[in-house]
């Protein structure tokens, strides 16, 4: 939060409430840092934007990695155009990366940017129009357009430049291509490394660390390419040293454990491996595919199967086939694919076959916003499927949690012989951050399936009357022969339409969910256990919500938050938590009607998805606030929404 545009503080804490800042690393001081000119900060948000294909994404990712190496907490957010190759210099074509770096671990992308590097003024305008830049934001812009042969382009550039200055932005022009031309023939390729060099100087990064990062990302290219890019990096660094009088220093966070820098999809892939699921079935879909790609890459070395199916249905059915045959499998998809999988998910529920389904949510409905985030599939995940299809739904609240959620999911799937849906989303999928390197725990592995002969006449669905659980027999297991079916069946797995048999089957499958619920821990409240308002969230919004709560509490508001990992079933004790607050409101990244619209009233309002669930289960008048802008929620946006809801009075009694 506390990221006001930096006043020029002279070597001192930017914020008196922050912990004492460590001294700048020796290397930096010796290299070039000019004492008295660097601004010490707790955090900064940096954006690099260019036309698609100009390398701003790679520049941003590298910048984030270097920052993590320097010990900063980081969080990166991809800025993705809708098309693969949008026209050059178009507002719609803005592509790049946002990096939030801080002197502590960060849990979300934060608010607006403090500094932006733009390769042309059009992509910059896109970010201005979207309100993504702080007032007075530092703008570093390629200035070759000023002298462009096309008069119209030159005029547009000048007009924009003047406007930015007039609007109070701190604009600095950089002759990127002109400088790059001194080292390479084609400055179009490689000026992203020049920009990276500039940023490394501005943020007091160790140039040697940056060199290694560049060498690493071009490791597969020949040494001439590596050398050329390192040269451009150094050129950018040197240019900034000579020509730019802005410098920021963000001290490293206090991290002692070894860290790995990953995004949410890789965390999912690592979780799949750690859980011992060596079979993954998928069909290409944005933004889920990279998880399976990662697995495919690693499985080539360590063993495992990634099956690229002919469609989403087949991918799910393949995973079910594998689980049926005794090798628990995962299928990874996004909303449209998840919709197609409902048929076979219901089959797995009915036949009680363990299955892990990961839904990396994106904006919907239909094809929706393929590359952008939304939390729109919660109710669908809980209640999708015709008939009663009880299954487990859990959501990962961060990148590290993506990893652990998959491990938990497999254990639940095999213990309860059911489907476990893990919801992540597009923001987690592509956001990168350092997380503590997981240390392998043998508890992660599900025990091997007992394949010994079962007693003759053992029943394949010998449902326990209390828990609904039954031992599962797998094909090949002597005496375990039976014919699974998606039809209503009795304890022998014989097709049965008798009233009592169907009643018993549905009861048993439902009881398993209740039995799991008895094992869940009550989630803990962030903040105090009572107060004016409890914000309830789920999934990727955790970091932003908790940051907002911190900010509101600092303002004197008695606001706390609760984040749910298990959505179906929900842990015990939540009702009691909700009852301790004057108001309860969910904050979600999905649709809800607003009373600001005249036609909306209490009888027709459609709530956010978690709000529906909480209202239905706890009979508490849970309100909601949500937006569907395809962007991760910003802490400040949440703060504003809560302030508005609470009004001026600090204590507003029950009622909405």
């Amino acid at each position, binding site marked *: 939060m506390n990221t006001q545009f930096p006043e020029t503080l002279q070597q001192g804490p930017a914020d008196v409430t922050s912990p004492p800042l460590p001294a700048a690393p020796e290397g930096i001081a010796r290299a070039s840092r000019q004492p008295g000119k660097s601004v010490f900060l707790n955090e900064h948000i940096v954006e690099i934007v260019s036309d698609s294909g100009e390398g701003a994404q790679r520049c941003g990712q590298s910048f984030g990695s270097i920052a993590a190496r320097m010990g900063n907490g980081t969080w990166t957010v991809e800025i993705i155009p809708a098309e693969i190759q949008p026209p050059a210099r178009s507002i719609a074509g803005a592509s790049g990366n946002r990096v939030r770096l801080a002197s502590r671990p960060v849990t979300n992308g934060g608010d607006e940017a403090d500094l932006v590097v733009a390769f042309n003024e059009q992509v910059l305008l896109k970010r201005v129009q979207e309100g993504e830049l702080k007032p007075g934001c530092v703008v570093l812009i390629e200035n070759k357009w000023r002298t462009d042969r096309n008069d119209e382009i030159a005029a547009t550039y000048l007009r924009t430049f003047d406007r930015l200055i007039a609007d109070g932005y701190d604009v600095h022009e950089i002759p990127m291509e002109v400088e790059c031309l001194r080292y390479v023939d084609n400055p179009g390729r490689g000026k992203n490394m020049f920009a990276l060099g500039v940023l490394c100087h501005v943020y007091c990064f160790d140039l040697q660390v940056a060199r*290694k*990062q560049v*060498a*690493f990302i071009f*490791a597969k290219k020949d040494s001439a390419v590596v050398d050329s890019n390192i040269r451009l990096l150094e050129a950018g660094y040197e240019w900034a040293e000579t020509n730019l009088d802005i410098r920021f220093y963000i001290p490293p966070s206090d991290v002692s454990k070894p860290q790995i820098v990953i995004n949410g999809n890789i965390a999912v892939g690592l979780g799949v491996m750690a859980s*011992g699921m*060596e*079979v993954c*079935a998928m069909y290409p879909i944005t933004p889920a595919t990279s998880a399976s790609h990662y697995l495919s890459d*690693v499985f080539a*070395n*360590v*063993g495992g*199967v990634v*099956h690229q*199916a*002919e*469609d989403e*249905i*087949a*991918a799910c*059915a*393949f*995973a*079910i*086939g*594998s*689980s*049926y*045959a*005794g*090798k628990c*499998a995962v299928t990874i998809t996004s909303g449209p694919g998840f919709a197609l999988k409902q*048929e*076979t998910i219901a*089959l797995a529920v009915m*036949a009680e076959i363990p299955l892990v389904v990961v839904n990396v949510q994106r904006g919907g409905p239909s094809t929706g916003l393929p590359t952008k985030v939304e939390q729109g599939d919660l109710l669908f995940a809980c209640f999708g499927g015709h008939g009663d299809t009880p299954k487990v739904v859990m959501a990962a609240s961060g990148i590290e949690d993506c990893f652990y959620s998959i491990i938990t999911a497999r254990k639940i799937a095999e213990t309860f012989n059911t489907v476990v849906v893990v919801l992540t989303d597009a923001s987690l999928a592509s956001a990168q951050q350092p997380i503590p390197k997981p240390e392998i725990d*043998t508890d992660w*592995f599900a025990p*091997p*399936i007992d*394949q010994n002969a079962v007693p003759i006449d053992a029943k394949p669905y010998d449902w326990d009357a209390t828990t609904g659980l039954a031992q599962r027999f*797998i*094909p*090949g*297991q*002597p*005496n*375990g*022969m*039976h*014919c*699974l*079916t*998606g*039809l209503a069946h009795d304890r022998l797995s*014989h*097709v049965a339409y008798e009233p009592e048999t169907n009643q018993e089957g549905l009861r048993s499958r439902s009881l398993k969910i209740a039995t799991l619920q008895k094992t869940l821990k009550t989630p803990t409240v962030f903040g105090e256990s009572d107060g004016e308002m409890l914000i309830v969230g789920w999934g990727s919004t955790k970091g932003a919500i908790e940051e907002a709560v911190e900010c509101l509490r600092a303002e004197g508001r008695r606001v706390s938050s609760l984040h749910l990992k298990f959505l179906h079933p929900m842990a015990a004790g939540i009702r009691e938590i909700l009852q301790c607050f004057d108001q309860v409101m969910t904050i979600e990244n999905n649709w809800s009607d607003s009373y600001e619209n005249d036609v909306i009233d209490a009888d027709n309002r459609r709530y956010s998805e978690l709000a529906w669930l909480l209202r239905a289960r706890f009979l508490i008048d849970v309100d909601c606030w949500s937006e569907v802008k395809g962007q991760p929620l910003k802490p400040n946006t949440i703060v504003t929404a809560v302030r508005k809801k609470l009004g001026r009075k600090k204590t507003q009694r029950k009622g909405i």
Partner: protein
Amino acid sequence: MSYIRKPAFQHPNLPKNEIGLTRRDYEGAMSTLCAGCGHDSVSAAIIEACYALGVEPHRLAKLSGIGCSSKTPTYFLSKSHGFNSVHGRMPSIATGASMANTGLKYIGVSGDGDSASIGLGQFAHAIRRQVNMLYIIENNGTYGLTKGQFSATNDRASVGRKGQKNQFDPIDICSLAIQLGASFVARGFSGDKAQLVPLIESGMAHEGFALIDVVSPCVTFNNHLGSTKSFDFVREHNNAVMATDFVPAREQIHAEYDKGEAVDVQLHDDCTIRLRKLDDDYDPTDRASALKYLADHHDRGEVVTGLLHVDTGIENLRDKAQLVDQPLNELVERDLVPSQALLDEVNQRRRW
């Protein structure tokens, strides 16, 4: 009639196969299909083939989708594993199961609605991937369970029970399978068990995707005059191009045939398919000429049956995926957890 239990009593002198089981041991529950249904003859042929091959019932899984045909796994091999899944999705479930446990034999039973309509995509990809299974389509040109709609394999000239005209050309399952690269393609007729049993035996012994399209008339909805999937029509127009004998590994081949009269096709586990050409023009190893033959003879209103195409030189899905010999579901932590050295190597590529 699934509520009618078959008597458990077996005559002590019933003949036994090489693993000591009788034919009765390969039977299933009483069929609930219509009396005279072609599908019941196919079930009987499967029972006969499994008995003759000496298949261990618990080492076999039978999978099916939805439809009359897909109900039949209940009526054979009750001592085997089974999965009666959802409409048109059996191929992918079989694909997944066959990867997770390569140690079992897999028989898929499907119908023309299940495989030529709702599951056509999955069917095509199971062929293309060369899943190691026997895939039987009980083809009657109609949707029996939903009371007699035309299916995608119904010939254009074939009219409905009440004289309804069929406006669309059929999908020929065998031609499609040959075109997609199936390595074993046969067509049988449920009314000709002598032809069908050795085809099933051969298909089960084949390592790769083996398809048998069995024309299996629906006595209730598609067995009338004017149907090209009726018992009478198929009997009259059956053009058997190839007679097939299955010779298990344990049997020595004693009989001598004149050169050119019979062709032996060696299968992987030393079994042999002995083919005798009934039509000199037919070559089951040549895809292009097989396709032409099928198209030409279909146009003449003939139903071409027999082993239509065979290729034993293919790589099946298990080979393509480079699976370990041990079934994946038997691997334990010791096999699955990569060594520290290997992990270090993988990690090294991702760090500097």
